[in-house]
């Protein structure tokens, strides 16, 4: 392993291509932490945005007019405003309104840190699109199938959970896939509120070493790999959900 690292030091000495995050132990650690932070942030946001999509689409079908209006208002708000502005809004505006909590050293700290705000903001942002995606899937399930479930005595929630959602999932996976890819890429915005994810760490490293082009190229390849893994697993999932004789085969 040492030889591998040393080769990159040699590469720098010989060619000027400076990949400090490989041969320098301190930078390497920072980069790995940033990489893991991006993955963690992505996974948490993926999870919550899908939950928001599922619950939102369910509420959108509610018989209560005000519930539907509320969901539509939410979608309009988050779909029609830039995610960076949302992030600032949550972190600086909403965050400031919340009470402060005492820290161990006698100081005061905000109730929610920057990571929590990034999760909240990005999940709601991607969730707004997910609600619309799930709604499209739900509308693709024939009314007669839902009616059959209801005639068997299933409640609206039971029908949603056991019939509508499993069928809708199969229809929307390509669209959901797209939105989740976008979400992973949008996690770079958390840079703006100093969440130490990959872009933030890369910035620190290039500030110290003045190796901007190398870091940029690395960043692009790292995101290609991350998104590639996501797309690959989503496609695998899509294949595993295929039902004989249903949909496009």
């Amino acid at each position: 392993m040492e030889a591998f690292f040393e080769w990159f030091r040699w590469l720098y000495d010989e060619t000027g291509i400076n990949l400090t995050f490989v041969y320098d132990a301190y930078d390497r650690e920072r980069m790995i932490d940033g990489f893991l932070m991006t993955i963690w942030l992505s996974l948490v946001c993926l999870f919550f945005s899908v939950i928001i999509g599922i619950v939102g689409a369910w509420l959108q079908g509610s018989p209560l007019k005000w519930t539907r209006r509320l969901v539509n208002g939410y979608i309009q708000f988050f779909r029609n405003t830039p995610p960076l502005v949302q992030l600032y809004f949550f972190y600086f505006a909403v965050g400031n309104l919340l009470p402060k909590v005492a820290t161990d050293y006698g100081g005061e700290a905000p109730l929610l840190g920057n990571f929590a705000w990034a999760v909240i903001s990005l999940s709601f942002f991607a969730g707004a699109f997910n609600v619309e995606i799930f709604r499209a899937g739900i509308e693709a399930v024939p009314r007669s199938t839902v009616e059959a479930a209801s005639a068997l005595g299933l409640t609206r929630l039971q029908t949603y959970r056991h019939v509508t959602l499993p069928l809708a999932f199969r229809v929307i996976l390509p669209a959901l896939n797209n939105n989740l890819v976008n979400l992973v890429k949008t996690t770079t915005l958390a840079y703006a509120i100093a969440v130490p994810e990959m872009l933030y760490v890369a910035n620190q490293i290039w500030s110290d070493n003045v190796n901007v082009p190398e870091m940029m190229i690395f960043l692009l390849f790292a995101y290609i790999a991350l998104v590639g893994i996501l797309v690959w697993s989503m496609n695998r999932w899509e294949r595993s959900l295929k039902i004989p004789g249903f949909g496009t085969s």
Partner: protein
Amino acid sequence: MAWTPDQPMVSLKDVHKSFGELEVLKGITFDVMKGEVVCIIGPSGSGKSTLIRCINALNDIQKGSITVEGQEVNDPRLDKLELRKKVGMVFQQYNLFPHKTALENVMMAPLIVLREDQQEVEERARMLIRKVRLEGKEDSYPGELSGGQQQRVAIARSLAMNPDVMLFDEVTAALDPETVKEVLVTIRELAEEGMTCILVTHEMGFAREVANHIYFTDRGVIVEHGAPATFFDDAKDPRTREFLSQIL
């Protein structure tokens, strides 16, 4: 007043149903006793399907009364679950759950709605699949079955809830003539076992054979009704005669 089996199992009184401006049922009244098999026939658009969909509250009605075992269906406080435990329904387009196997389709409602024991439900489901002559197809998905096979799974799925009344809404209309027979055989067996059945059908021969009573509806009213023998051979109303002459 509690319902007793000597009273009509299903009773309709002056039932009116409109879709917006369009009135499709204009005062329908009839009773179905326990164990009776009733066929509703009539031209397309005469409100037959709407009529039986009202019986298990898939459609609401604007005026009149429908009772199932004494329970009023036209009541905002209606416990739909109680009603649907009593009334099974089979649709023209089968409407099976495409992501579940035949066996899972049959097991689903007893497991989710009645929360019965998994093993008991599976035993009963396998028995019902044998009953509709689909042994060996338990693990097939609906997309892998023919129309007639799917419709028989749909019948088994309804029977799994142990209903007291079965509603059949043109269940053979989407099938080719060869598979119609296998579905009709299944329904006839049910009727012979004493299941109360209300069928909307275009199969006149079948109606004549299995029904205790035939109702002919046209434009939202019952034009004529009677036992099959008198109804088919001795229809009084000119509209009935015209309809029968076109079909038979």
